[in-house]
């Protein structure tokens, strides 16, 4: 990075070095810049940074359900501080999940690219060897319903539906009969509307947004006799997405 010589002809090189070293570094002689850059970063004793770890190493590893339940309980408690109501609490949980969705999307694709053998991640929706970015709504929802759910919960979601009402063609529903995040949460009676799977809704929202599909995702309780914890994730796509969808449909892009 920091080259010892800085000729006027090498504008671009000195530019990149200057970008990376901060203002106080600039006054130092060039050979010290490198030194500072090396020591400014704290590296573990075995000199391994996150860049030395392989992203697929923990691919089949599972985290303990107990520690997840504990962590998630703490997250809910944290989100509950100074909230004005259930909607506010759900919004906060949603915001906690959102950045996770953006990250998972990159990780999911990286793992699909690098897996040479057809793994559990590649499903019918992403059968081709190099996975494609979803361009239309349906491939995106299949991505969430299948590979994303499998990455998170080790199984696909239970149902994927399109709103039947003609007034809301932009609404889709993803159903999970027994969401893992709610397994150890019992909601008090006065907060019966609350569904802590709003966190998962945030993850879905992050994935949609990352792919370029502006959407609002909310989690709703819809218990049945067999599945008392059944949750519906309502995905509402924005106006711009629906417009693009029409244009792409006319262009014949799948």
């Amino acid at each position: 990075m920091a080259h010892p010589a800085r000729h006027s002809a090498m504008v671009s090189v000195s530019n990149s070095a200057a970008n990376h070293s901060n203002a106080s570094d600039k006054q130092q002689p060039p050979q010290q810049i490198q030194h500072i850059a090396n020591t400014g970063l704290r590296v573990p004793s075995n000199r391994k940074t996150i860049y030395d770890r392989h992203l697929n190493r923990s691919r089949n590893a599972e985290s303990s359900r107990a520690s997840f339940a504990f962590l998630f309980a703490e997250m809910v408690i944290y989100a509950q501080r100074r909230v004005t109501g259930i909607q506010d609490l759900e919004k906060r949980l949603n915001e906690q999940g959102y950045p996770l969705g953006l990250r998972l999307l990159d990780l999911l694709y990286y793992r699909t690219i690098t897996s040479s053998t057809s793994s559990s991640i590649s499903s019918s929706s992403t059968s081709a060897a190099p996975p494609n970015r979803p361009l239309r709504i349906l491939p995106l929802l299949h991505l969430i319903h299948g590979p994303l759910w499998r990455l998170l919960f080790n199984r696909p979601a239970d149902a994927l539906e399109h709103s039947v009402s003609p007034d809301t063609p932009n609404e889709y529903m993803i159903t999970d009969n027994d969401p893992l995040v709610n397994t150890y949460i019992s909601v008090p009676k006065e907060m019966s509307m609350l569904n802590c799977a709003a966190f998962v809704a945030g993850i879905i929202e992050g994935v949609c947004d990352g792919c370029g599909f502006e959407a609002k995702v909310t989690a709703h309780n819809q218990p049945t006799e067999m599945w008392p914890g059944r949750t519906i994730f309502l995905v509402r796509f924005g106006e711009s997405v629906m417009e693009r969808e029409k244009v792409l449909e006319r262009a014949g892009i799948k």
Partner: protein
Amino acid sequence: MSYYFTILSSTDVPLFNIAFGTSKGGGDGIARFRFPDTAQYMNQFIIHSSLDIVEEAQWMNGNLYLKHIDTYPPASAYISAFLAPSGARFLLLHQPPQLPSTSSTGSGSSSILGASFSASALGGGSSSRASSSSIGANPTSPQTEEAVRQFMNEVYENYVKTVMSPFYRQGMEIKSPVFRSRVTAAGRKWL
């Protein structure tokens, strides 16, 4: 061949940029742009002006690597794009070396001629230092596309590692010196 690589967030914020030269065919890895006085800002300008085409191309095909998408003939700058699934754009500007025979006035047509000439006469430029490698001379050849694809994939791997760090938020500038050295290494390996 000289390269300028930049990562833009989904909201067009520059997250990372680096300039480097080819290391293939005896290159020393130092960027020598055709117009060194203006390269610093012109490269950014050219790269950003290709964003319109990226945004058009991104809904036409679902690949992550969009290949060579734009050319700016006056500087004979070729731009290749790669889209990370979460919306970040990786853009690589590559500029083949100018052969000594072409005049340095740099009008558009002579640059194009220079590029095609250098492609046909591989290894002809005796004095140009970093030219005429296997991928160097012709920026739109399949070999170049493949090399850029490999480069992009390697950068993508490191980008995912950056993004997975809990201290990184979407849209933050990537300052890690390790990341920079990884990108430099990828450039040395493939370009």
